[in-house]
């Protein structure tokens, strides 16, 4: 038997989480380094996965399969397609930056006793989330996926509720109350989604007799597994609801601004750049593959909701006064683009959506982490408390500008490629929706540039006049992200090569073909 590479990629951060948590209270710095090294080792494994994966090969590769709960038909089945590989790489790539950016976020306050070990907990939880997210991208057994999809809520809950942003306008008590509210709201929304999905998972088992994604999909494709139209639709809705909460899709989005606002910036990145991607990923993998007919049935409604997300999220971002909430609403707008690309059901739309997941992860990480550095310097999340920062901290301002430009999808940076693919892919099938979505590019310029103008330009505010520029640790975080944004904007081929075959498979799952150009169709 070959080396279980996929298991190892997830097991490493899981074991690292346990080890980090076990580091004695006094050795905080050791815990940080341990977590960082584990995350880097995981990145190495993810790169091995990337290298070993053959884009032209089988649909699912590096597969592992073991009986688990035999009576119940649950198997420990792992496998990755191009989309999974890309997202595992994204996750493994971002975690070291998240850890490095949050280096001091969980240092204990002096008032606590020496037995208090928040630092160890913070980094252990991040690694635990990483392990579960990676397993979600790998699992090809529906039940196995469900377990990790739900289980990651626990560490996320504690990360949001236990380690809030110290830059809070109110008193400590008020901050704690808002933090709990945000954490519970996050948990409740996702739990409700998860419970509905659980019902659908059980329903699927009743209909199909097992949980194997590949088996069910195959049986669906060759006609041996018939589902009544209504059954399929209900099951689809059960799955989709959970993913739409996590993604998040309008109107289920309201937990995200709370969670991202109250959490520390690195945790906010973890939420929006990593954890939420499981939702959009699962739409592609489970909704389209298991319920192709129901997916097509629901497409018009989903596209409209996605379109609302795009415009609504962007308008709300314009109206925000809190930097982190602004980024959260921008993310809602971007998730609208991703979901639109998935359900446009064209090669360009789905390739674009997958690239979008990766690119949004990198660009949001860049913007949010720099915003976090800014916020930690001034101790405020309010846009109005800043002004003229570029004069005192030009490197910080420059990186913030690049993050903003990536967020508004400037051509030449990675997000442009994916956003344009999604727009084109949607437009060829749904021209009106494609055109309305284009307004998103104007609004994105509005909220990012207004944010930049208010915080970075103008006369220097006295409170920011002594602000230090980016430190070495912070530069180590930001520079590689920016380099990646430029590289993938100019040369996205390595990524598209991996993603394209997987998209072809999904397109054949839903039995859709790209609309032919009219000139060609006429011939």
């Amino acid at each position, binding site marked *: 038997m070959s080396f279980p590479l996929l298991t190892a990629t997830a097991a490493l951060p899981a074991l690292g989480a346990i080890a980090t948590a076990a580091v004695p209270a006094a050795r905080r710095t050791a815990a940080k380094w341990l977590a960082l090294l584990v995350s880097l080792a995981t990145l190495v494994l993810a790169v091995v996965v990337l290298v070993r994966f053959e884009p032209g090969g089988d649909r699912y590769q590096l597969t592992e399969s073991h009986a688990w709960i035999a009576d119940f038909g649950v198997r420990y089945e792992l496998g990755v397609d191009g989309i999974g590989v890309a997202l595992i790489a994204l996750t493994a790539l971002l975690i070291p930056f998240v850890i490095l950016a949050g280096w001091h976020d969980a240092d204990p306050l002096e008032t606590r006793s020496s037995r208090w070990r928040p630092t160890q907990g913070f980094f252990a939880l991040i690694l635990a989330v990483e392990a579960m997210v990676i397993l979600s991208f790998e699992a090809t057994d529906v039940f196995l996926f469900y377990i990790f999809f*739900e289980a990651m809520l626990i560490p996320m809950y504690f990360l949001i509720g236990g380690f809030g942003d110290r830059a809070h306008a109110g008193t400590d008590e008020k901050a704690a*109350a808002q933090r709990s509210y945000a954490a519970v709201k996050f948990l409740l929304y996702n739990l*409700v989604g998860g419970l509905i999905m659980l019902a659908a998972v059980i329903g699927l088992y009743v209909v199909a007799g097992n949980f194997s994604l590949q088996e069910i999909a195959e049986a669906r494709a060759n006609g041996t597994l018939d589902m009544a139209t209504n059954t399929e639709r209900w099951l689809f809705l059960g799955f989709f609801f959970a993913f739409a909460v996590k993604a998040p899709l*309008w109107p289920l989005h309201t937990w995200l601004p709370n969670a991202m606002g109250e959490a520390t910036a690195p945790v906010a990145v973890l939420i929006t750049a990593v954890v939420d991607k499981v939702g959009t990923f699962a739409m592609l993998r489970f909704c389209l593959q298991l319920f192709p007919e129901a997916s097509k049935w629901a497409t018009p409604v989903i596209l409209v909701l996605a379109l609302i997300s795009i415009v609504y999220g962007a308008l709300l971002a314009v109206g925000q006064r809190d930097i982190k909430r602004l980024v959260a609403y921008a993310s809602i707008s971007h998730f609208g683009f991703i979901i639109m690309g998935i359900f446009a059901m064209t090669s360009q739309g789905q390739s674009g959506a997958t690239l979008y997941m990766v690119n949004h992860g990198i660009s949001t990480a860049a913007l949010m982490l720099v915003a976090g550095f800014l916020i930690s310097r001034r101790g405020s999340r309010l846009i109005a408390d800043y002004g003229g920062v570029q004069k005192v901290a030009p490197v910080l301002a420059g990186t913030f500008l690049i993050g903003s430009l990536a967020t508004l999808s400037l051509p030449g940076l990675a997000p442009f490629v994916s956003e344009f693919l999604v727009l084109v892919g949607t437009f060829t099938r749904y021209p009106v929706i494609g055109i309305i979505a284009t307004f998103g*590019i104007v609004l994105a310029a509005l909220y990012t540039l207004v944010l930049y103008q208010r915080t*970075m330009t103008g006369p220097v505010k006295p409170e920011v006049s002594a602000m230090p520029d980016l430190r070495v640790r912070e530069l180590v975080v930001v520079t590689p992200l920016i380099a990646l944004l430029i590289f993938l904007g100019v040369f996205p081929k390595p990524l598209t090569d991996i993603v394209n075959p997987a998209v072809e498979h999904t397109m054949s799952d839903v039995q859709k073909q790209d609309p032919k*150009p009219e000139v060609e169709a006429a011939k």
Partner: protein
Amino acid sequence: MENLIALLVAAPLLGAAVLLCGGRRLDAVGHWIGTVLAAASFVIGAILFADMLGKGAEEREMTQHLFSWVPVEGFQADVAFQLDQLSMTFVLLISGVGSLIHVYSIGYMEHDERRRRFFGYLNLFLAAMLLLVLADNYLLLYVGWEGVGLASYLLIGFWQHKPSAATAAKKAFLVNRVGDMGLSIAIMLMFAWFGTFAFGPVLEATGETSEGKLTAIGLMLLLAACGKSAQVPLQSWLGDAMEGPTPVSALIHAATMVTAGVYLIVRSGAIFNGAPDAQLAVTVVGAVTLLFGAIVGCAKDDIKKALAGSTMSQIGYMILAAGLGPIGYVFAIMHLVTHGFFKAGLFLGAGSVMHGMNDEVDMRKYGGLRKYMPVTFVTFGLGYLAIIGFPGLSGFFSKDKIIEAAFAKGGTEGWILGGVALLGAAITAYYMTRVMLMTFFGEERWRHAPTPSPAEPSVEPAAETHGEHAEPHPHESPSSMTIPMIVLAFGSVFAGAFFGIGDRFIHWLEPVTDHAHGHPPVSALTVTLSTVAVMVIGVGVAYAQYGRRPVPVAAPRGSLLTRAARRDLLQDDFNHVVLVRGGEHLTRSLVYVDHTLVDGVVNGTAASMGGLSGRLRRLQNGFARSYAVSMFGGAAVLIAATLLMRAV
């Protein structure tokens, strides 16, 4: 030879990367690096030009394929270049004027502590602009298109500590984004209908496409052109863009970037040729902007804003010509090139005047400067004669041809367009004479009126705000500034005659853009004589108002039209009330709706569905954590129970 094409873009791009990432170490030599790399681009362009001249007219097009950019099923976007006569014209203009302005900036920005960064941005602009004109497909053109927008944003807001500069930069980018929507949609339409957006296949496929589709694409391209070229209704950013340093105004907001819209339309000529309605829209936009810009230019006392109005108006001429189809394309580009010379020269002259006048921009506080700045006076004067179309100078040849072509469109349209173009020529002569007289002639009004501080107090002195309050001591600028002005003045005088006599420019561009000789309803001589006549009238009226009477230092109240024109014909106020205020109200109410309604409904639904409303109330009373733990415990029990039941 075609492998050199990429170097045209690579040289300034390298400069931008080195200068922007290099840090303070390069402060001492940064401007030289930037200038040398800009000049390198010009030299490569000249080599390619010489090579091109050696070939027959039909074999001059060169292509270079670098790599496949976005390889996705059914979607082919390449990083590939196409250098033909049209691109070549732009390459020489951009890198040539660009290099001159780099040289000028060495002197102009000498006292700015961020000079290295300024040159980095200028190089970035050159790279993006060259990419725009060299791309062989619309998507890559889009990269250059937004790239110049970015450079423009960075340079308008170069003095970021001035809120007005930061606002102007943001406004420029946003208005341009509205235009970019047009370009995006045009590309999407091409992809949906032709399956490609490369110039070659798209422009070939126009023959077999219905007029309606071509009109749709054409109108979207026109929207894009309106944004970039500051044409009505997306013109409002250009006046504010004068917040940028003057070399930027000369290079980006006069000679090159703002003419990208003209390039786009001429490049897409085959699409417009098949869509008469779109062409009509183009000519209308051009004609309206031509008058709009000219009227605004008459009322501004700020020398740069007067010139900005003039730029708008002159680009209106080009857009008008481009809308005329094959009878106008060549003249649109010809006017674009001559305008590049004389308008860049005028801006550099204005910068030189400001340099010597403590950065005062109000022409009412100039006067009689010809004695103190002889070189600036002569070069500016030649640019002035060129733009008003003084017989024999550049503007005379290029503008006359456009007016002729407008008449040649035929029918009522032809008379209207021709009449507007003629009227525009009169107004041009008027406002430019006004600028000339107020600046270089008349009483020395600056003597008794020391320059007040600028409207926006700056935190610390920057290049354009140092030494305020002192009485100005007008002086000639250093040679690094005057030499580029002299070179451009040379172009302003001779370029038109060189291009126009013997139809050289027509023969050069014809293989790319096609050319049809227009036949105006009146003889060409009549048109030319009328053009000269209205020019004389314009100059005469201005002389009567500003030459023979003293110019008041404080602006008189003026007529209703003057007051409206000072406020950009109220278009900005309309934008402010409708878009800015309206948008603010919309977003504010949406924030409220999201907070109360959407959140409330979803929370409420979830609560009632799960029977959790009582718990939710407790949650808000601060029992959050215990609640969450119990909730999670419940879920865990549920899952375990289900598992167990199944397993049994």
